[in-house]
């Protein structure tokens, strides 16, 4: 037992040393030893960095989960790493009160609507950008991108009036359409990257074989870039799910997202930390589920399909 512990601590010191003097050591390494990908001898070292990073990422989430199982009296009475008297009360509050759980339903409805709209309009556009040159194409592409870069605060100002004029305030479709502002450009960008990786000969062969364009697009092309569509949908889901400023501006009660309900209820009921933490945990779950499905493509997706 003791020797085992010593071995671990030596390995850790060793790792820390390599971290500090990494470059000098590597520079002194004899020719003939592979410096990078397969450093089998120092496997422990390579694991240390991602592990520490993941611990850093998970610590705040752990704290949130921890709090969500505590009673408010326990939260206020001091800091403890585990709930002393674990309780499900906080979750029960959310699941038994429609004004709470409807927030989740609202969020999911507009996020899904937004994802469907954004990906379906972005598909033909991305195809056009990846296959053809046309009048003003580059400037159009840049203009689309500026909408992804522009601060939502700039647009949020007249959004309320704009959507009021169309009678869309406090509907799910309003938020879904408004989020298209940044999600459609992003979807076009990602899909264009994936489509550029598909050789053009495939299109030409299909036309020679007598496929019409719509049939070719649906039957041949879409299956080919299925992973790209998945990644684009994931990113639309992600940015629509995390956005609050616009979603809050456009909704009052019937379509209010959970994130907005969280802020309002907390200020009204005088800091119910337990329920706040439970609501926070519940907003993390859909994201975690979605990541799991796209885990193999996520890195490529973040590179916007361009690696």
């Amino acid at each position, binding site marked *: 037992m003791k020797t085992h512990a010593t071995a671990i601590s030596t390995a850790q010191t060793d790792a820390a040393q390599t971290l500090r003097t990494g*470059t000098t050591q590597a520079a002194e390494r004899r*020719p003939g030893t*592979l*410096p*990078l*990908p397969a450093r089998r001898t120092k496997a422990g070292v*390579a*694991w240390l960095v*991602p592990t520490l990073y*993941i611990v850093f*990422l998970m*610590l705040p*989430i752990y*704290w949130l989960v921890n709090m969500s199982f505590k009673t408010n009296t326990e*939260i*206020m009475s001091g800091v403890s790493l585990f709930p002393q008297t674990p309780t499900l009360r906080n979750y029960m509050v959310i699941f038994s009160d429609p004004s709470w759980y409807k927030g989740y339903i609202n969020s999911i409805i507009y996020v899904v609507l937004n994802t469907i*709209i954004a990906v379906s*309009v972005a598909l*033909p*556009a991305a195809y*056009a950008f*990846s*296959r053809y*040159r*046309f*009048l003003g*194409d580059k400037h159009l592409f840049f203009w689309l*991108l500026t909408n992804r*870069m522009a*601060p*939502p*605060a*700039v*647009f*949020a*100002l*007249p*959004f309320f009036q*704009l959507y009021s004029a169309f009678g869309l305030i406090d509907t799910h479709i309003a938020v879904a*359409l*408004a989020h*298209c502002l940044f999600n*459609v450009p992003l979807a076009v960008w990602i899909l264009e990257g994936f489509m550029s990786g598909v050789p*053009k000969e495939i299109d030409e062969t299909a036309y020679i074989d007598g496929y019409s364009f719509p049939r070719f697009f649906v039957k041949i092309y879409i299956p080919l870039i299925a992973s790209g569509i998945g990644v684009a949908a994931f990113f639309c889901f992600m940015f629509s*799910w*995390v956005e*609050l400023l616009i979603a809050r501006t456009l909704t009052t009660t019937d379509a209010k997202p959970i*994130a907005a309900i*969280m802020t309002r209820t907390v200020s009204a009921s005088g800091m119910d930390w337990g329920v706040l933490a439970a609501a*926070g945990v519940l*907003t*993390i779950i859909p*994201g*975690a589920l979605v990541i*799991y499905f796209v*885990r193999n493509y*996520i*890195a490529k997706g973040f*590179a916007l399909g*361009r690696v």
Partner: protein
Amino acid sequence: MQKTWNNKAWFMVLPVLVLVAFSAVIPLMTVVNYSVQDTFGNNEFFWAGTEWFTEVLESARFWDALQRNLFFSGVILAIEIPLGIFIALNMPKKGLGVPFCLVFMALPLLIPWNVVGTIWQLLSRADIGLVGYSLARLGIPFNYASDPLHAWITVVVMDVWHWTSLVVLLAYAGLVSIPDSYYQATKIDGASRWAVFRYIQLPKLKRVLLIAVLLRFMDSFMIYTEPFVVTGGGPGSATTFLSIDLVKIAVGQFDLGPAAAMSIIYFLIVLLLSWVFYTVMTSSDAAN
């Protein structure tokens, strides 16, 4: 890829154009209209000329917020880009560790932004937060609500927690795309670890790193929700970034004219910076 010239492709872009124009062009035109007028509500507007622009350009408050925001973006880039590359270099390239790392690292990116703020609020408070409480026990009275430096540290660490994974995932995507033969060549040459990074990995990462810098700069330049939840822009105005200030003026004080003028100046800065980044990106693509 050689692209064919075909103006009919416009019809394929049309839905996107209509949809984005609805949410982008109409509001932008409205903002321009508001910026030259004064209103007391009821859709009654009075011509104000360039008054609001002069007011914004001469207000110390705007320049302070701009400086603060540029400094914040600079700090964020200086921390997140090197840290992200460093973590990506040390990530496993194959095996079970890969999906494990990817899923856990992507998790903070999918948390609603105000929940991110709430998480860090719960963590940093001295009475109920793990970090705030531990620091207090160590004799450091950490209070982000009253000390500007502490507020800044909280906001910066929160952003590093929230967004470094984006840089990691981008850099990782670039690294796994480098063919093994490149490393074999360095093995024969006996190149040092640094030389491998400098002459093989970094050039291959250039493209994804440009995307990372672009996204991280723009997103930190428009940051609103997370610091708003944690500090509310305070203490004083220590963490009042441009978007927070803009929403304060527009919604808090309902000064539509000044808010619109500020929006336009803000938007022009973003437009300029996006264009610079985009031009650097496309011309480096063309060079390859």
